[in-house]
């Protein structure tokens, strides 16, 4: 190497291995802090505040290019899409009318049972602006943050079903952990027989699983799993998954069911964030199921 003109003749500093080991120690310390304790949130939020504006600016030309591309979409494609959307609208309209009737009936039934009403949720539409480039987790970044009232922990759904949960909130963005993430779970209830279980992600894109299922649990391929709402996080009755296969136990005392998510987990561009209507008026209104059979799983 050619010495720079300003380089001192004699270098007074630690040797390379010493400096390297110092940096390694600092890195390992940070890793341990971040993995085990959530004390580094301030550092992450600060650095994110630097990176986020740059990311927005860099994404802008791409969006313009895409808009130009959309402008030249063929006429036939538009017509086809229009027909498809009209059909879809008819179907959706029908189901909405059906839903209204069901909701009315549901309200009556609730009143009958004198159950506390489910806490209301405000819907907030967000756009997925980025999928976290991280090989270990399934997470997306949406363009709604604490300034719009998003708080960590609130559920995220789409038109069909559950998508995930907000796990980190920044000022203008939020990180959503998808249902398919390995560490993510959702309490569900089988629509057919009311069996409660927990669906967890597998880390693969299009598969969920019910771990530690009772050997004799009545779960069959084709069963629909809806959120049970007993956790106070997810509202009850959101479609989550369809059971594909139930694996009988071989080496363990538990069976395991493979499921497919119903909502477009990681597929769609827009999601709906369910922000509790007033967080104060939500003293964990868990729908206390009157002590069912002790064998029932949470």
């Amino acid at each position, binding site marked *: 190497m050619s010495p720079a003109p300003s380089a001192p003749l004699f270098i007074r500093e630690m040797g390379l291995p010493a*400096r390297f080991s110092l940096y*390694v120690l600092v890195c390992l310390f940070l890793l341990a802090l971040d993995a085990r304790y959530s004390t580094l949130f301030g550092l992450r939020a600060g650095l994110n505040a630097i990176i986020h504006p740059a990311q927005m600016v860099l994404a802008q030309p791409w969006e313009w290019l895409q808009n130009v591309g959309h402008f030249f979409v063929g006429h036939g494609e538009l017509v086809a899409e229009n027909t498809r959307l009209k059909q879809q609208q008819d179907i959706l309209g029908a189901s909405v009318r059906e839903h209204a009737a069901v909701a009315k009936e549901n309200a009556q039934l609730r009143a009958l049972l004198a159950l506390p009403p489910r806490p209301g949720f405000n819907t907030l539409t967000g756009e997925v602006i980025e999928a976290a*480039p991280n090989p270990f987790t399934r997470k997306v970044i949406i363009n709604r943050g604490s300034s719009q009232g998003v708080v960590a922990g609130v559920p995220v759904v789409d038109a069909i079903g559950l998508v995930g949960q907000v796990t980190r909130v920044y000022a203008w963005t939020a990180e959503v952990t998808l249902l398919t993430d390995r560490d993510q779970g959702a309490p569900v209830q089988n629509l057919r027989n009311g069996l409660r279980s927990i669906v967890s992600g597998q880390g693969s894109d299009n598969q969920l699983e019910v771990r530690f299922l009772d050997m004799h649990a009545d779960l069959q391929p084709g069963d629909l799993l809806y959120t049970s709402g007993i956790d106070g996080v997810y509202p009850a009755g959101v479609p989550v998954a369809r059971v594909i296969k139930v694996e009988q136990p071989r080496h363990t005392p538990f069976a395991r069911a493979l499921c497919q998510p119903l909502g477009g987990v990681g597929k769609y561009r827009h999601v709906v964030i369910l922000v509790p209507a007033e967080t104060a008026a939500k003293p964990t209104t868990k729908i206390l199921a009157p002590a069912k059979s002790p064998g029932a799983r949470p």
Partner: protein
Amino acid sequence: MNMHKPLLPQGAELTHPPTRIKVYVSLILAFALTLLPWSETYRWLVPDFTLMALLYWNIRAPRLAGLGAAFGFGLLSDVARGVLIGLNALAFCAATFVVLLVQRRLAGFDATRQTLQLAPILLGKELLVLAIGLAIGRGMVDWRWLAAGVVATLLWSPLAWLVDRITGRASAAVGQQASY
């Protein structure tokens, strides 16, 4: 190896030496490249441009870049990628350390011949990130991401050639060839 390489900088390398501004501007540009909205379908193929820029400057001007820059840009990478803080910082520091150990040897080669020597470092960085992630218990690992290291190796020679040209080192090489 270029046996005719002069011991002291000559020509354009002398009149346009690498400066701190050049180093940091190119590092920031490389980092910006990784921030571009790459499509999800080929995101795993995108090499770590920040690391490539770091290694380039550590080979060419180790007094200007160094472990500190590697650590700082590693932290930025961690936040941008949403991984555990310190993961990329550690990998960057390790790669920089190895390059600094053999810096005098690498500096003697041109970009094309450096490629083979840098391949284990560029691949090793991706492997290290995945391995640490596994060790900390992040569950399943998507091994496709190792491909980014391969792409980085393939891109090393053209990119180094380009940066040589932009930062005014190439005209020196041309001048030397003319004088032989």
